[in-house]
């Protein structure tokens, strides 16, 4: 594993400039957080295709919708809290109901925003975005995947949500690794339990798998970079092959990645499942690592959840014998 730490927002910002060079249909509409989201790189490179609406998220979404009607591919951006919460009606009506080709880039998602505290820590965006018809929801695992995801959403039509983060993360993937929207990637093979993670939590999941390995527990780790459309085939395959599932996300326990996986399992192949997520509470100020620990989003919490799921698998008589 490369030990360099880079935030996913950086991968997005750099790739957007490359996209801007290859297509003059790429435009950016902003709400005065382009410095933090890294859309600023585009603003510097292509000032004529950058429009700030000021601190007005609703206006940003509607204006982007209008630009998309003219054939442009607008990238809108802000902190996840402000865009997904404040402008939800615009995302629903203007982008999803009209199926506009607008890309929604939200940085500062999750607890790892850190010291700014609960008001800035978005823990509900995956749930909010995932229930909107037409919306695609992606949470890249590292800066390289953020670049690929940025390319992929620019190339695909329709409204798409990209969740990026402020916290520097280890680079887990390589340029040559495949990335397809809706196709999860197995990062580590295993047979006793599968840990599905997204974003920040994938490196915690890999660490957990390492720890479990020392105890002779074989854990598979899957990078679930696309939350919608969720990779049903991968979930069912892992349920069949490992019989126990753990989800890990920097998000509320209600409605996010864990819920999306559970919805597939209960309908298609129920097996014991545990969820590592924030338990229906707001965050607080602190360093990213302190917060992950305090809200039980660390590798040790995934280890505990994995053991619990495996124990249930052994105790319960499952419908699959």
């Amino acid at each position, binding site marked *: 594993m490369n030990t360099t730490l880079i935030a996913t927002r950086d991968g997005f910002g750099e790739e957007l400039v490359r996209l801007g060079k290859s297509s003059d249909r790429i*435009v950016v*509409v902003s709400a005065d957080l382009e410095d933090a989201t890294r859309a600023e790189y585009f603003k510097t490179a292509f000032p*004529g*295709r950058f*429009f700030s*609406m*000021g601190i*007005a998220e*609703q*206006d940003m*979404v*509607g*204006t*982007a*919708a*209008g*630009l*998309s*009607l*003219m*054939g*442009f591919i*607008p990238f809108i951006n802000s902190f996840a809290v402000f865009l997904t919460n404040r402008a939800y*009606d*615009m995302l*629903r*009506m*203007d982008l999803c*109901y*009209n199926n506009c080709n607008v890309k929604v880039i939200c940085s500062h998602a999750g607890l790892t925003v850190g010291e700014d505290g609960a008001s800035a820590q978005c823990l509900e965006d995956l749930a909010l975005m995932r229930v909107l018809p037409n919306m695609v929801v992606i949470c890249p695992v590292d800066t390289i995947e953020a670049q690929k995801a940025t390319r992929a959403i620019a190339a695909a039509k329709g409204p798409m949500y990209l969740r990026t983060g402020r916290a520097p993360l280890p680079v887990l993937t390589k340029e040559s690794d495949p990335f397809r929207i809706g196709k999860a990637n197995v990062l580590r093979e295993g047979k006793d339990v599968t840990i599905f993670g997204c974003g920040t939590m994938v490196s915690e999941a890999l660490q957990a798998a390492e720890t479990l390995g020392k105890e002779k527990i074989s854990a598979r780790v899957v990078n679930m970079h696309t939350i919608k459309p969720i990779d049903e085939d991968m979930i069912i395959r892992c349920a069949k092959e490992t019989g126990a599932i753990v989800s890990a996300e920097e998000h509320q326990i209600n409605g996010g990645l864990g819920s999306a996986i559970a919805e597939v399992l209960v309908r298609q192949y129920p097996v014991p499942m545990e969820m590592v997520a924030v338990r229906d509470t707001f965050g607080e100020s602190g360093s990213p690592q302190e917060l992950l620990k305090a809200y039980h989003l660390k590798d040790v919490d995934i280890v505990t959840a994995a053991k619990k799921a495996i124990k249930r698998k052994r105790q319960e008589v499952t419908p699959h014998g």
Partner: protein
Amino acid sequence: MSTKNINIQVLRAKAVLIRREILETLHRAGSGHPGGSLSAVEILLSLYHYKMNHRPKDPKWEDRDRLIVSKGHITPGVYVVLADCGYFPKEELQTFRKMNSRLQGHVHNKVPGVEFNTGSLGHGLSVANGIALGARLLNKNFQAYCLLGDGELQEGSIWEAAMAGAHYKLDRVCAIVDYNKVQENGPVNTIKNLEPLIEKWRGFGWHAIEVDGHDFQQLFKALDEAADARDRPSVIIAHTIKGKGVSFMEGDHKWHGKAPNAEQLNKALEQLK
């Protein structure tokens, strides 16, 4: 379609027929919004028969003027006018608000001539601004119109867009406020007053024009003036009467979102001749 020497007598007669068709369409559907449809008839006719460049047989013609109907509930008015222009067969009005119809309860772009789906208030002006910004990038010179309700101006998002329109000097944007003074639960000025309205728009940097929204000549003049404005967007405050043309609907908020029954329809049609 911009026939400057249009016969206003002919248009007035058309307005009566449009109002009759609106009420018949509402009656058949059994639900819908008469008040704001009837107040906007002259505005819509001025746009589609006087000012806008558009081609009913080629609704996606790239140089057409765009109209975003931000008060998306006035589908009876919009659909009847579009059908009358020839965007789709008039018989289709029979399907308004019915299952499997293109004619959704709130404006939907599957209807030829409709640019954008609305229905939640406060959305249209930002979209019109975005269209104008896009047009500017493409060196296109068409107008982006946005029809706003008055109650809708209570939504903060409208004023976000008003600020942006002036900041970006979007002189191809023309907002039209159907100022019928009545919203769902009563008079606008008792629910949350908009006044001084023209000063608000001017304060936001817009070229603001006030007209009688049932007077074609005033509307034509204002639309021409708005199109000629440079370096700032325009707004036409069109003073109208909610439920215009039907005595028992005029100014009554109870007719914001209710269809006439057979008896009420007949009574209304008696007055529209």
